[in-house]
């Protein structure tokens, strides 16, 4: 077992003995499930209306349910993922195990990657549980699986980005609440950049600002568009955030 695997295993263990994962997981699944239910009921109501008016109705679940669901999940992740990441480094610093980690024969980038992978696996597990919704709907209706798979790809990438921002925020402080707050703040700013981008319009600056925000990249994936440009965005953003976290951890030694 390599040191990175040892860190991942330890993080997973720590997550599952603490109540945080269960609380966060329960809230996440409950809210996503509730939203899915509401969108389905709403779609059903629309179908009935259409039947009354036109006598027949062709429902598009991709548009009526999944697009909305993917759009809402984005916001839920923005709130809950910082709760998962806030402890990663802040807790180590508070409990003085930080010094132990940094004096162990393991590189800082291995620590950062190990911690990121640990929480990423927890997130993948939670996301995997939501797949029950499309699977159940598939029993009773017919829809296009392709945009759902790309939507999930979008969620995975978006989650990775949120988590990497959370890792960075957690490295900045020894207070977990502050860490959660900072990452929610950073993510909201990233979100709002897309609004600023569209305000600036189709200029070079406007496009650049929109590109920095995750919104348009995620939207493409939810619509079923897999563009290398968007994949590159997510990968480079995650790498940049983890690199910054590495720098912050390294500089914490000097104080």
């Amino acid at each position, binding site marked *: 077992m390599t040191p990175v695997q*040892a860190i991942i295993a*330890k993080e997973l*263990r*720590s997550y599952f003995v603490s109540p945080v994962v269960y609380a966060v997981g329960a809230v996440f699944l409950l809210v996503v499930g509730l939203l899915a239910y509401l969108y389905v009921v709403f779609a059903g109501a629309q179908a009935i209306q259409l039947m009354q008016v036109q006598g027949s109705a062709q429902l598009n679940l991709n548009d009526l349910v999944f697009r909305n669901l993917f759009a809402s999940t984005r916001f839920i992740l923005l709130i809950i993922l910082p709760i998962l990441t806030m402890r990663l480094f802040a807790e180590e610093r508070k*409990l*003085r195990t930080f010094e*132990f980690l940094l004096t*162990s024969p393991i*590189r800082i980038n291995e620590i950062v990657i190990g911690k990121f992978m640990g929480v990423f696996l927890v997130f993948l597990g939670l996301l995997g549980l939501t797949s029950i919704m499309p699977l159940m709907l598939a029993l009773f209706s017919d829809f296009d699986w392709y945009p759902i798979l790309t939507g999930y790809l979008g969620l995975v990438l978006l989650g990775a980005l949120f988590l990497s921002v959370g890792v960075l925020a957690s490295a900045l402080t020894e207070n977990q609440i502050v860490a959660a707050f900072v990452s929610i703040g950073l993510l909201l700013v990233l979100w709002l950049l897309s609004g600023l981008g569209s305000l600036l319009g189709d200029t070079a600056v406007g496009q650049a600002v929109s590109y920095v925000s995750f919104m348009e990249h995620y939207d493409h994936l939810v619509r079923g568009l897999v563009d290398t440009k968007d994949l590159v965005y997510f990968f480079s953003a995650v790498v940049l955030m983890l690199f910054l976290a590495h720098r912050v951890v390294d500089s914490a030694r000097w104080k």
Partner: protein
Amino acid sequence: MIEVQQITKRYGQHTALDRVSFSVAKGEVLAFLGPNGAGKTTTMRILTCFMPSTEGTAKVAGFDCADQPMEVKRRIGYLPETPPVYQELTVAEYLTFVGRLRGLSGKTLTSSMQREVERLGLGTVQQRLIGNLSRGFRQRVGLAQALLHDPPILILDEPTVGLDPKQIIEIRELIKNLAGSHSVILSTHILPEATAVCQRVVIISGGRIVAEDTPEQLSARLRQSEKISLTLKSPAADTNSRLKAVRGVQNVFSSGDSGTYLLECELGKDVREEVARLAVASGWGLLELKAISMTLEDVFLQLTRHEEALAPEAVVASVEPAG
């Protein structure tokens, strides 16, 4: 095994370590003594490659702490001030994690864990969460962690804090047994501990090394002469010279108006009787008369508190201004 040369550590304006140099031979146990904030922990953090020094070089087992930290870290077992334990893990899980971080696996890991569990008496708590253990057990888990990969060098920051007297003796025995095959640096507040387990003592104060020797030598150096402290209620103007005239008295220091005198006498000569007679006969109002014996504790206090010394400039002078 450990070579520290002219290490300086500054935090902004504050100098935590000022040109500290010392070395530890293979198999030697060195104690770091000093008041809080003297720079003990800072020195240990530099040696374990947790933080870099501002100036100077530190070499551990031939590897430079700044250039080859991984090689240094592999050879060091480090117990920080607060035992670095994860409360949500059991003792066994924690030691497994530590072993894996250090590249142990399979049978080696199992046998190393068994060895340390036995050595530190953790058998009964192996499956318990560390968060539910007492301070003493956590400290022992911290020690097990430092020893797990059987490193040639051990750096222990106050290893016996939080232990009960029986455990303290056990840990001291353990450290004594490690000497010879391991080089150990330990910091402590408890002076008998330094005398009990260490071959050499480094006294550090205000970021400087003020003395470095064996515990016996350190106290011997201060016992070059017998010292007597004398307190008088109403000393006269000629008290100083008349005290000096007593046979066997070499030097007299007075501390101004408080009436306290420090007499330095020839070795092996007890002048107390005569001094008492003189004081009574002269009507100086004898309040107190006692011989000062120098334990390591006194040495430590004298060396680390000289700025607020009561009288004994003489004592400090006799230790020679080291550092």
